[in-house]
Structures are given as C-alpha cells and as structure tokens.
C-alpha cells in the first residue's frame, strides 16, 4: 500500500476529497451556465457565520454552517425572485453580512483561533470520522437530488421561461438548487476552505466547457477533471508537505490551462 493510504486521517481526507470532487462540478455546471457562480461564494461566507456560531455555542461547526447556509440560501432565493434588488446586490449583502456576523461572533468568543483558520483555507486532514459521515451523507443527498431532477434542471438552465411555459415548477426547483449549493459549500468547506470553494465549482466546469460536445458530456468531463485535481492536489500536499486546499485549486488551474492549450493546438 502506498504510504499516502496507510494513515487513517489520509483515508478520511481522500474520501471527503473525492466526494466533494464529484459534487462540486455537478452543482457548478448549473451555476456557471446560469451566471450564478457568485452564489457559491456568498453561501460560503454565510456558512462562515454558521461555523463561528457553532464554535461559540459549542456544537459541531459543520452542523452550524449547514443550518445557517441553508437559511441563507432560502433568503437569497427569496430576494432574487422578488427582483426588487438590482442584479447581484442581494448576493453582495449576504456575502458581506455573513462575514460581518462571523467577525462579530469571533470577537465575542475571544478572538481568532486555529480552528477557524482551517475553515477559511481548508483542513482536510483534520476531517474526523463524524465529519466524514456528514460529508458523505450530504454528498449523496446532492447527487441523488440532481439525478432525480436532471431533466428539469437542464430545461431551466437552458431556457427558464421555456421550462416555465411547459409547467415545470421553476421557482421551487430554483430554491432547491440554491439549497443544494448550500449543502455543497458546507461539504467543500472542510476540503478547500471557504475562500477557495468557488474554484472547485467553477474551474473544472470551465475546463469541460472547452471540450464538451453536449451538456451531459460537460458534466462527466468536469467530474473527471475535478477528481483528477483533488487526487493530484492531495498527493502533492502529502508528499511535498504543502497546503491541501491550495494544491487542489492549483491542480485544477493547471488542468484548465492544459485543456485550453489542447483545444488551441487542435484548432
């Protein structure tokens, strides 16, 4: 067995990493194509408030992040549908609001601590057994929901109005998608950290878009690129002793550059 698989903390880290490697691009493809990539970033900052509240209250911070991010997702979607705020203003309010709550709560709890740093930049090797179960449960929930509503999500992504005219419950599914983004963000938080989450949702999809010949193939190619980035990043992190979150995102960027060059070479 290679050294990287001999430690139980690395086994847990790899399982968590592979799960996020699958679900991030699956959700990301819908966000990127609908120009909603910023929602992931926003919910990540809202989740940070949940982490801080969880740490303060002494409950599992991942659970705190989950609850607060889900509530934030519903709030964002309500504001977006109401349409009273221009463009991305709603997102900006939630993004900075989440960060503000986090900063205040951290101050109340007596300052910045090491735990919080892990949530900002990822601490995948610190994934505990109970975190792993939560991550796997959330990941399976996200994948199963997308599988069930795949054709509706495609129809809405391609032409929201056309889907509405067909009787597809667009508003309900939009809300569902936003909640799925919240779940994905909470899972990704442990792996790459809040500040790097949108990279995992966006970069593999952006790479896949350069080579895919259909929507379905975009999804599969993005998942393959994302898994490759997670594995490469974690291997590099283990053997070179560098930060896992950063290594994963950098691997994804290298793969993105690679597909861009390959496409240019072919043309």
């Amino acid at each position: 067995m290679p050294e990287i698989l001999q430690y139980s903390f690395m086994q847990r880290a790899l399982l968590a990493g592979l799960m996020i490697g699958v679900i991030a691009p699956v959700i990301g493809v819908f966000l990127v194509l609908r120009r909603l990539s910023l929602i992931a970033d926003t919910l990540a900052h809202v989740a940070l408030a949940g982490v801080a509240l969880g740490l303060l209250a002494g409950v599992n911070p991942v659970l705190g992040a989950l609850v607060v991010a889900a509530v934030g997702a519903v709030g964002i979607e309500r504001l977006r549908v109401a349409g009273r705020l221009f463009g991305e203003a709603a997102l900006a309010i939630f993004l900075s609001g989440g960060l503000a709550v986090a900063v205040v709560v951290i101050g109340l709890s007596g300052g910045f601590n090491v735990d919080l740093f892990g949530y900002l930049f990822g601490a995948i090797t610190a994934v505990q057994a109970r975190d792993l179960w939560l991550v796997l449960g959330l990941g399976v929930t996200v994948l199963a929901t997308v599988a069930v509503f795949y054709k509706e999500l495609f129809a809405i992504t391609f032409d929201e109005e056309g889907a509405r005219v067909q009787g597809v419950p667009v508003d309900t599914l939009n809300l569902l998608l936003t909640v799925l983004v919240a779940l994905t963000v909470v899972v990704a938080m442990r792996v790459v950290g809040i500040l790097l989450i949108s990279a995992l949702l966006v970069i593999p999809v952006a790479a896949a878009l350069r080579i895919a010949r259909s929507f379905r193939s975009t999804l599969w190619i993005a998942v393959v690129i994302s898994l490759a980035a997670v594995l490469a990043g974690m291997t590099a992190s283990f053997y070179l002793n560098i930060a896992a979150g950063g290594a994963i995102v950098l691997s994804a960027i290298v793969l993105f550059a690679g597909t861009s060059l390959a496409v240019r070479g072919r043309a």
Partner: protein
Amino acid sequence: MRTFERSLTVSAATDPPIVAEVEHICVDYGVARVLDHVSLQVRRGDFLGMIGPNGSGKTTLLRVLLGLLVPSCGHVRLFGTDIREFHDWQRIGYVSQKAVAFETRFPASVFEVVLSGRSGRAGLGRRFEGQDRAAALAALDTVGMAGFHDRLIGRLSAGQQQRVFIARALVHDPDLLLLDEPTVGVDLDAQEQFYALLRALNRDAGKTLVLVSHDIGVVAEEVTQLACLNRSLVFHGSPAEAIRSGALAQMYRAESLVVSHRH
C-alpha cells in the same frame, strides 16, 4: 367560465372552437399602459399573425397568453379553461425570442435541446423514456433537421437553430403553437423555409399558430388571420379585410413613424 362554455356551444355550428381567448386585457408597467382593454379570440386552425410597431404590446400579449405575465385586468382562457386553473401546458408550444438570441456557447447538443421540450410532459422527477427520444428525433425530422441531433446547438446557423427551437416546441405535440419574432437575424432563404414549415404545420398537421412579428408585409401574405396591435387592438380579421379597411396601411405608417423617429 360557465358563460364561456355556453357561447362555445352556440357558435359551434358555424365556427371552429376557440382555443385561446383574452378579454379586456390591460397591462401596466409602472404608470405606462402597454395593453389597453384588448380582447381577441384564436380559433382552432387559425394562423394568426400579430403585428404592430415596436412597443405596441405584441410580445406582452403573448406573455399574457402564456401565463408569464399576469394582466392588471381582464381574463385569459386557454382551451376553454381560465388560465389560473389551466394545467394542460403540453397543449401549447412556445418559440421564444430566445431562439434567436441565446447564449451560443451553451454546451448542449441539438438532441438535448429538443428533448428538453418533453420535460413537462414526461412528468416531474421522471426520466425520459424511449418514446420521448423517438418524439425528439421525429420533431427534428419534421423541421428538416434529421441527422443534426449530435451537433452542438451553438455551432449551427441562425436558421438551423431556429428550426431546432421549433422542433423543441413541437416535440410534446401541442395543438397551439406561439412564436415570438422568430425571423429576427435569419437570412432570407431560411425565412422562406421557415414560412413553408409554418404553412405545413398549419394546413397539414392542423396546428393552430400565433405568430408575433414586426415584419408586416411578409406576415400579411402568409397568415389566415391578422391582429393589428397598437396598445389596443386596432384590427382583427383576414388579411384581405385588413387591406380593404386600411388597417394594414395604418400599421405601415405607425411602423415607418417609429423607424423615422429612430433615425
């Protein structure tokens, strides 16, 4: 609703049934009234051209018919049912303006685009089945795009894309097809093919068509019914009557006024 059904039985002996009807529709955007007490009936087998200058409310009226916009007053009935209680959306096909102005980098194959037109019919949360795939291929065949199913939608010409969008609107076999300015940005050859396709759908396949267009001359030649809109309904009848009554000339003047105003 009850009174409507009565009127339907009275007129059934002479006219085909009404498939879509608006009654005293008003739409306001802020303080501006875009549609002012418009009443209009579409009967089965009609090929209705809805024309009018820019800002005359054509697209707005179409959106009201589709339930995308709730009017500030008036009633909408589809196939005899008040729109608020209407759920049989498979009977309606819609080709939106998006058909000519969509994101061409969207990674979807022609087949995926057409198949997505079956989303409502297949049922929420259900997978597409063999019959859905067969219907998608048949719809592509109808619009003369068989063999293009695995091509990226963004790589096709504007005219080809337009035909794919019509296939998507036909794939769930609607009785009523609504098209919003579908010839914008399409070259003349493709336009001719497009109108030939609409003629075939109307005459041979028995579809009821509503075509919104600013292209007054072409539309007047193709359709069986004309509705001239300029915030209120100026005229509704056959193209020949439109010419006789001077309504068509009035529409031309209104259009040229808008055009000269813009230059």
